[in-house]
């Protein structure tokens, strides 16, 4: 009924008014011509920019933008005692914040519903993909290990939050540099700062030089919307609110499926739709790999 009255009024109404009053028929008219309101084709993702080293006080950081969605990731390392069950392993704590700046729906007293869900999804994906070997975060077996606090702040929420958050986490880990530390007389680990590292070294450093973390694989993702027979890649917030069925596919560098996340939704996913989403994700993976490598090599040149 809404669609029929929509088409009667469309000739008399302005485009913006039609977009607000009948959002579904506005988008469907575009889909009939295989295009979306912002001019993209159905399978194309928005422009992606990655900038590493955005936060100088953190050990590793990255700022990513997919279209308008902006995420800032920062990693700080702290020394802790490892657990008894795994004395050779460090630990990673992942947290995702949606401050009120990111969206008009988020208010200071009322935390966003999406925040704990994306946080849990992120920690599940990063741990299941095996990207980081926790043994690399160990310092002295049984006594000291690194605890990495990864905090991701959403600065602008315009759809595909998980994709942008995962990309910024991966970029931040690629940029991470583990600082040089040494054991002092009381048996505690202290940081060797750049200034007095030069001449006299009374204490033997535990790790010889600043090193980067070795990443076994790099998991990257693409979120798609399923609507009737269409598959839309990389939705904006407007598209997500109208067509509610989202599928997120996470693939790693060896094309293993790390996660296929479809949290319900009005449209059922047939096997063909799943295979199409996986194919779109593979394409997107290649683009993202290129952008990520360029960003990291730009940083290293400086």
């Amino acid at each position, binding site marked *: 009924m809404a669609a029929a009255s929509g088409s009667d009024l469309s000739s008399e109404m302005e485009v913006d008014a039609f977009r607000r009053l009948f959002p579904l028929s506005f988008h469907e008219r575009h889909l009939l011509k295989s295009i979306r309101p912002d001019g993209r084709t159905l399978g194309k993702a928005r422009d992606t920019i990655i900038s590493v080293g955005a936060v100088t006080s953190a050990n590793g950081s990255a700022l990513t933008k997919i279209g308008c969605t902006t995420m800032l990731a920062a990693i700080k390392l702290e020394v802790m005692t490892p657990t008894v069950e795994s004395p050779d392993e460090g630990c990673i704590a992942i947290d995702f914040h949606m401050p009120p700046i990111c969206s008009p*729906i988020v208010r200071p007293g009322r935390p966003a*519903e999406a925040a*704990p*869900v994306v*946080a*849990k*999804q992120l920690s*599940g994906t990063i741990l*299941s*993909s*095996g990207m980081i070997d926790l043994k690399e975060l160990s310092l002295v077996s049984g006594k000291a290990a690194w605890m990495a606090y990864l905090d991701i702040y959403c600065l602008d929420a315009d759809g595909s939050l998980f994709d942008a958050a995962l990309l910024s986490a991966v970029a931040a880990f690629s940029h991470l540099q583990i600082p040089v530390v040494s054991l002092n007389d009381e048996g505690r680990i202290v940081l060797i700062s750049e200034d007095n590292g030069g001449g006299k070294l009374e204490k033997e450093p535990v790790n010889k030089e600043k090193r980067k973390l070795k990443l076994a694989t790099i998991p990257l993702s693409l979120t798609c919307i399923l609507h009737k027979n269409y598959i839309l890649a990389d939705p904006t917030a407007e598209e997500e609110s109208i067509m*509610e*069925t989202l599928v997120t596919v996470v693939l*790693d560098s060896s*094309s*293993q*499926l*790390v*996660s*296929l*996340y*479809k*949290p*319900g*939704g*009005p*449209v*059922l*996913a*047939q*096997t*063909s*739709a*799943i*295979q199409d989403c*996986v194919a779109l994700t593979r394409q997107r993976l290649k683009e993202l790999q290129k952008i990520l490598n360029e960003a990291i090599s730009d940083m290293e040149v400086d």
Partner: protein
Amino acid sequence: MEIDRGDGRKPNQLRPVACSRGILNRAHGSASWSQGETKVLAAVYGPKAGTKKNENPEKACFEVIWKPKTGQIGKPEKECEMILKRTLQSICLLNVHPNTTTSIIIQVVNDDGGLLPCAINVACAALVDAGIPLKHLAVAICCSLAKNGRVLLDPNKSEEQNMKGFVYLAFPNSIQSVLPEGSLQVGGEPVEHGIITSVTHGAMSVDDYLLCLQRGRAACEKLSVFIRSSLK
């Protein structure tokens, strides 16, 4: 090569399932579901007048509250609430009672693996007990992939931790699946083969995932026969 499962089950064998409805007097609908040692209770209150803020008043609204067995409510519980809410929104007829809220409260009694599928099954049974109009039922199952590539259905907690990966799947189940002539086809595949929900843990190849889907579907058909008989 046969795999020895801890409790002597075959790879395709599910744990013993028990379902009872109408166990809570005050709730409008309630159900309890147990698969092996995993047991979950659900209560449905609704439809109540009014929707929450930011929800569409032309449709019915659903609210899910997930209570773990011990501990405070944290991120895993919030994620389960969101997944369950979206799954149930897809199976309910939202236009029948606009501007109402239905609350579903899930209480975990014991967690021995496959918690989310149990919760989806019990929520469905509780909604049927409360008389909320549904398009079709949702049947959920957990499929896990062992390190040697075999698919094991319905793992318990110790098996889940040793597996390469596992998937929680929920499939739709309507009365038409009972009459083969009447089943709808979408692009050559029956509608019942679509998935409502899929949540994976652990990395696996795409082919392994599709294999898990097939096994999951077959198992859900058996499970749905049990559900229909118990919901009479």
